[in-house]
């Protein structure tokens, strides 16, 4: 492990100088993307001893008779960030949603194979789906705060669990702090969450998930509706909480995967083409398709 791991860009001393010398209208993030793709080492340092949080084995998924996932097997490692990349419609979001059984809600879907979480198959009919979703939280593509106050948004999941009022108040503050939102909203907790900016809303949604102390946090393209600055904040937030939570993030943004993840899986046409440590996958892809994708030959 490197010692200067305070933020995603702390390893990029050159970036600062370059930024300053650029014209002001140049979006700074573009440069960072460039660095993440090229000059900078992809991937966060990984913990070799990380245990497996969810072991997915031979997963097939069907919408009616249409198969969208083919024989997916991969380990989701504990307290690491796993990024899932691939072109639109490759099945990465569908795969993510199988991990907390959100696809149950879509009629005429069928699943084969297993995903072992804490010694039990997620698809075991005896599994308590409610409990499962409390242990495996999810953040969606578009920020989707409830049309309630900021406080009530976070308290919602806690009230479901009938936590005492006192504990709810503590958890609201704790999770807002964890989501780096506390300072921005502490004076207006009773205000509607819909008055927040898109980036704040998405951090609120992350805080809402964190309030339940999930073991795993699934994020489905959490930054795709956000501007670059808000995206950076989310990425920093994810890195800061990745020491406590297992994170799986679906992203369209390859440089995002390269910046924040320890492991990356590349999906194409419903198949997991390649999976491995992010550094290796980006620098020495073993599959031709992976190389074509990360070098931008198709998207």
């Amino acid at each position, binding site marked *: 492990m490197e010692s200067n791991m305070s933020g995603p860009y702390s390893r990029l001393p050159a970036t600062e100088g370059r930024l300053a010398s650029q014209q002001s209208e140049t979006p700074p993030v573009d440069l960072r993307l460039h660095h993440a793709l090229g000059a900078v080492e992809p991937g966060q340092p990984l913990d070799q001893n990380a245990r497996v949080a969810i072991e997915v084995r031979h997963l097939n998924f069907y919408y009616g008779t249409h198969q969208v996932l083919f024989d997916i097997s991969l380990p989701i490692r504990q307290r690491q960030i796993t990024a899932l990349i691939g072109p639109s419609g490759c099945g990465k979001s569908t795969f993510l949603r199988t991990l*907390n059984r*959100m696809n149950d*809600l879509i009629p005429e879907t069928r699943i084969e194979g297993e995903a072992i979480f804490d010694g039990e198959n997620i698809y075991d009919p005896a599994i308590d789906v409610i409990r499962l979703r409390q242990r495996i939280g999810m953040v969606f593509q578009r920020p989707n705060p*409830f049309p309630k106050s900021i406080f009530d948004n976070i308290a*919602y*999941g806690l009230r*479901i*669990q009938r936590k005492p009022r006192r504990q709810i108040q503590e958890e609201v503050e704790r999770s807002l702090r964890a989501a780096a939102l506390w300072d921005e909203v502490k004076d207006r907790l009773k205000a509607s969450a819909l008055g927040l900016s898109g980036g704040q809303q998405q951090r609120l*949604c992350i805080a809402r*998930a964190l309030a339940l102390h999930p073991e795993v946090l699934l994020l489905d393209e959490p930054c795709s509706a956000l501007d670059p600055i808000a995206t950076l904040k989310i990425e920093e937030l994810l890195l800061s909480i990745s020491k406590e939570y297992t994170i799986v993030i679906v992203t369209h943004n390859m440089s995002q995967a390269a910046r924040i993840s320890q492991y990356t899986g590349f999906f194409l046409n419903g198949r997991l083409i390649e999976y491995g440590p992010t550094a290796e996958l980006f620098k020495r892809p073993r599959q031709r398709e992976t190389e074509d994708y990360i070098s931008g030959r198709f998207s």
Partner: protein
Amino acid sequence: MSVPMPTSSSSSSTLQSGESRLHPFLATRSSLNLRRRLVNALVVLFTTLAALFAAGLLIYLLCYVLSQGLRYINLDFFTQLPTPNGEPGGGMGEAFQGSLILIALASLMGVPLGLFTGIYLAEFGRGPFAQGVRFLVDVLNGIPTIIFGLLAWVLIVIPMQSFSGLAGGFALGMIMIPIVTRTSEDVLRLVPRELREASLALGATEARTILQIVLPAARNGIITGVVLAMARVAGETAPLLMTAFGTTFWNTDVTQPMDALPLRIFQFTLSPYQQQVNQAYAGAFVLIVLILLASLAVRLAAGGFKQR
């Protein structure tokens, strides 16, 4: 004009003559353009006239009703009972009282049934059964309202051996069900799927998601539907003729005949006394204004919601 204009009468020959081929558009412009403009002007004229006629009818109705009844709208009109034998004074207080009770009774039955059916159709309703329910609700919406009166008469009036407010409320409630069902189904479907998923992903059950997230998000639209349904039954007369029946006395006992505004208007219109006929116009005016106000309030309260 510097451009040579071919004659408009021979458009086919102008295309062949070398001179006119230089200006093929001009060849047809004068004849076609005139016809187009004429047709256009006529369509605009007729649609405008139709709109004016429709709006004018309502305004004429309001003015006429007002001119006949305005003199009789005073405090007594709302608080006094009808006078016997057309003596001067009096009002139709019992009709306002009865209408309020009847609409309350109808809402008690129509709102929950309609709302829950709407929730079922929007949230759980899939497959042929839901399609059947949806179709039946539409049919229910189209049934002449006197049929509901007949149903209430058979189910309640005959067994109880008496006309009653209960029977009237039942008939009006039946009329409310399809209106509330369809509007609430529509607005519930407008609630983004993302909100439902957010709730479910936090470990909420479907029931909790609907009650605490989906229904509050759709609240404005649901209230709109309820108010429109109430305004609709407030003016219903036919189903009340054989159920609530009407009375000229104060009555809060729902097992007894009960008056209603449209019923009183109907009775007074047929009255041989001029004062009661004029009071019927006054009642009609009040009824129209109440319904207008309800529609207006809904428009204002849910305006942003409906326009999207």
